[in-house]
């Protein structure tokens, strides 16, 4: 027989999955806007704001469960993890919106001729987001190791992209646009690590730091 607390925890989990899916779509749209030079800011902002509202709802519901049920052990760890994850997912949405905002702030810029490393970095960051969402869905803490590998690759690609930007002969507006974008992508990948660390802690009780 399931406990009332189980119902509440499941509701929060479903909210997180919804947030994750929306954050994934927001990032997809932001990257499409960046590489295809489309203005996606209005939509990414709206979606990011929705994620923010959902994050607040997660926090409220988790606080309510803490107050009403005074959970212990796995229940307590899970709620702690969910509150933390809500923040990380909110950051995905915010960074995606920030990528879209670059065009607003800088106006049009010239594309770099060779975007291969930048696109690889975008793919890699997005893969990190996808795995982190799958980790929430499945509560499979073992995915942390798969994510760790891809996050490490993301870091390498970030440094590679940074090197390209420091050497490239391009207008400063172009460099700034790419620089901001790769920074946001690297941060998103970092937050995906935090998500999987939180799930691992909820499931096993052991703290693992991929950072």
């Amino acid at each position, binding site marked *: 027989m399931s406990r009332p*607390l189980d119902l509440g925890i499941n509701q929060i989990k479903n909210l997180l999955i919804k947030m994750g899916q929306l954050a994934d779509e927001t990032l997809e749209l932001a990257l499409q806007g960046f590489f295809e030079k489309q203005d996606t800011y209005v939509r990414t902002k709206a979606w990011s704001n929705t994620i923010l509202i959902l994050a607040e709802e997660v926090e409220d519901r988790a606080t309510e469960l803490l107050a009403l049920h*005074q*959970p*212990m*052990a*796995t229940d307590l760890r899970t709620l702690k993890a969910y509150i933390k994850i809500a923040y990380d997912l909110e950051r995905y949405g915010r960074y995606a919106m920030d990528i879209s905002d670059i065009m607003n702030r800088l106006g049009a810029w010239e594309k770099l001729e060779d975007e291969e490393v930048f696109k690889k970095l975008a793919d890699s960051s997005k893969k990190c987001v996808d795995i982190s969402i799958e980790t929430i869905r499945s509560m499979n803490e073992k995915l942390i190791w798969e994510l760790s590998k891809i996050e490490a690759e993301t870091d390498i690609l970030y440094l590679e992209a940074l090197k390209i930007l420091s050497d490239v002969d391009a207008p400063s507006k172009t460099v700034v646009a790419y620089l901001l974008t790769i920074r946001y992508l690297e941060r998103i990948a970092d937050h995906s690590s935090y998500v999987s660390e939180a799930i691992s802690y909820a499931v096993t009780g052991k703290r693992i730091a991929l950072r």
Partner: protein
Amino acid sequence: MERNYYVGQDVQGFIPGRAQDKVVFRELNLWYGDNHVLKDINIAIKSNIITAFMGPSGCGKSTLLRCIDRMNDIIEICRVEGDLYIDGKNIYENNVDVYEVRKRVGMVFQKPNPFPKSIYDNIAYGPKLHKMAKGEGLDKIVENSLLGAALWEEVKDRLDDSALGLSGGQQQRLCIARALSINPDIILMDEPCSALDPIATQKIESLMRQLKENYTVVLVTHNLQQAARVSEMTAFMYLGEVIEFDSTKDIFENPKNQLTENYITGKFG
């Protein structure tokens, strides 16, 4: 049943008299007639902390508590095997004076049970019985005991009033003061707040935190949140066994044993 000890202290390496181990159970077993109530208890309770025993009804936690002052001796069908050391001295040895043991251990019960006497006489009863003091010396013991139980300010002007006229929370603090009056080392508390309202409970819990500065406090509680709030170490008991004994933080946040996890998350019990 899975036997899986996670003992916070090095029980195997126990050396009688080691300062921080106040109460040490070694292979302690207890029977009521044919009923094997406590099974192979091996834990060490540190001095000057609060240790909580928790577990479902009938798991043996109160019986375990009563072993510490040999209160189970008064039950005819009770039989104890194994060792229980207080400050390195085995209190179940043949030549031990049970009354001396009980002088060192104060007990507070579930329901406040003041004597139908004045507030003063309730506290003075034990010291008089043990011929500890009289006159001004006795007055000082009463005052200090009531101060120690955070009750002095509330009753100092009416020490001759009946103790039965106090509120439930005050009566329980009076019982704590009575326990302190004989100058024990150890305070045992068996569900001390279960009959009290939240305000009185909060006062007793604050008092427990103060008491541990000078006493070793052992608490039996059904209230998981209370154990989590006040104790440093917690033992989870089930069917007469200590299933897990660890820091309270670990027990409530990250228990190692599935039975503990199931109990504290309300999946059984």
